[in-house]
């Protein structure tokens, strides 16, 4: 299955950003990230949690290679040229291509003809393969974006609040779908969120960021397998999280 990834060769994600600033419109500079250091182990699902506007999306953009104007270094897992599966805040599907074309276009040339029936059916998209994105609801478009990110068999999966602006039941359904496709072929994953319940349900580890300029306040490990995390356990995890990070009010 996992053919192109060499196990053991720098399999973890290492982030070491010393400084990231933006130039504001009035000529001043805004410091967004300062000494942001964390690692994500191979095949670990980590969540970045932090107050809104603290630089979570900026961090992700740096990891995606869309912003190289920072001081520091990052190391993606896998080979030198890591394959990144990205789920953006907006689905960012090409409106002029069908769902299936969108997924296949993102795949490297030699993989383009592989069978995607399993992936589409796990995500409940089998009947929508020939639909255009404009014909999909936001929830379905998000699923298509997740399908695209996982179809390329990524070395790392980066997700930027993939479940915002959905109603809670749809979001919950999507979280389960994401978990089931991810568990079929686990990969190092990093998800940005401001939803603590979501992080407790999905993550092996929660990385908590401070206000701007963002750095890591602490991490919260959840070693319990996901299928043991029932409502009672989640409530306990939530309580111990809040005890540990009492200051972080808006992460609820």
């Amino acid at each position, binding site marked *: 299955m996992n053919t192109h990834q060499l196990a053991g060769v720098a399999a973890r994600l290492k982030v070491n950003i010393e400084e990231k600033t933006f130039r504001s419109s009035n000529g001043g500079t805004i410091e967004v990230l300062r000494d942001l250091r964390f690692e994500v182990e191979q095949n670990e699902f980590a969540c970045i949690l932090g107050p809104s506007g603290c630089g979570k999306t900026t961090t992700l953009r740096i990891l995606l*290679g*869309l912003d190289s104007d920072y001081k520091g270094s990052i190391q993606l897992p896998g080979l030198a040229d890591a394959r990144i599966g*990205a789920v953006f805040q907006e689905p960012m599907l090409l409106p*002029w*291509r069908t769902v299936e074309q969108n997924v296949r276009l993102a795949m490297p040339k030699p993989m383009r003809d592989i069978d995607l029936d399993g992936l589409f059916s796990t995500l409940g998209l089998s009947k929508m393969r020939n639909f*255009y994105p*404009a014909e999909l609801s936001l929830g379905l478009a998000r699923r298509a974006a997740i399908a695209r990110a996982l179809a390329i068999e990524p070395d790392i999966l980066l997700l930027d609040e993939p479940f915002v602006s959905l109603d809670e039941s749809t979001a919950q359904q999507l979280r389960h779908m994401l978990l089931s496709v991810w568990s079929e072929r686990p990969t190092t994953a990093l998800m940005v969120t401001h939803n603590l319940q979501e992080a407790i349900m999905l993550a092996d580890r929660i990385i908590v960021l401070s206000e701007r300029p963002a750095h890591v306040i602490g991490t919260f490990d959840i070693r319990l397998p996901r299928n043991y995390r029932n409502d009672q356990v989640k409530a306990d995890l939530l309580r111990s999280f809040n005890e540990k990070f009492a200051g972080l009010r808006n992460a609820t």
Partner: protein
Amino acid sequence: MVLLSFGALVVAWHLGATIWPSRAFPAPLLVLQTFISETASGDLPYNLGITLCRVAASFVLAMLIGSVIGVLLGSHRRADQFFNPWVILFLNIPALVIIVLAYIWFGLNEAAAIGAVALNKIPNVVVTMREGTRALDSRYAEMAKVYRFNALDRFRHILIPQLQPYIAAASRSGISLIWKIVLVVELLGRSNGVGFQINLFFQLFDVAAILAYTLAFVAVMLFIELVVVQPLEHTSTRWRRSAA
């Protein structure tokens, strides 16, 4: 509805020509007769074909060059600031001046004729495509970068679909502008084509023949619009039609 509308126009024309009979205002039937005799002699199809070839050549040339310049200016702010006065200058040079200068500098030949027509259209294409390039959504380009689209895929699946409405607009206005200018070019410096023939008939005061040639040409352009342009637009925008 279209047929009914054209029918009414022909009837009005016929009535007008019957009430005020004149050599300068022939009835539709006479024009039709001229059309048939000119077609039978082979003159009309030959000259029409020549003109259409010139229209096609200048159109392709203008669209290609104009699009490339437009996309470059739209994506490079500095270059745009520098070259914008040039664009405005060329936009405002009268077609006739470009044609005359082209014939003087490059001689009365085919290349000068087609080049002059294309040059008249290029600034319009540049302006439209520059607008289109400025309106590109950079998030699609970022998505393509993350997923490592190669250059060809970026061009086919990211750039062209976003520019498609602007290409369509430039083509639409382009084809009508070009065929009007082609006639002037033919009138001034070629010895065949619809424009040359119309000049000939103008000297003979043969209004029926002028109208026969004009209508034949308009009919061809209408045919191209209905059979080529509209279906093409329909297919390339089918993803737009049904929004959830």
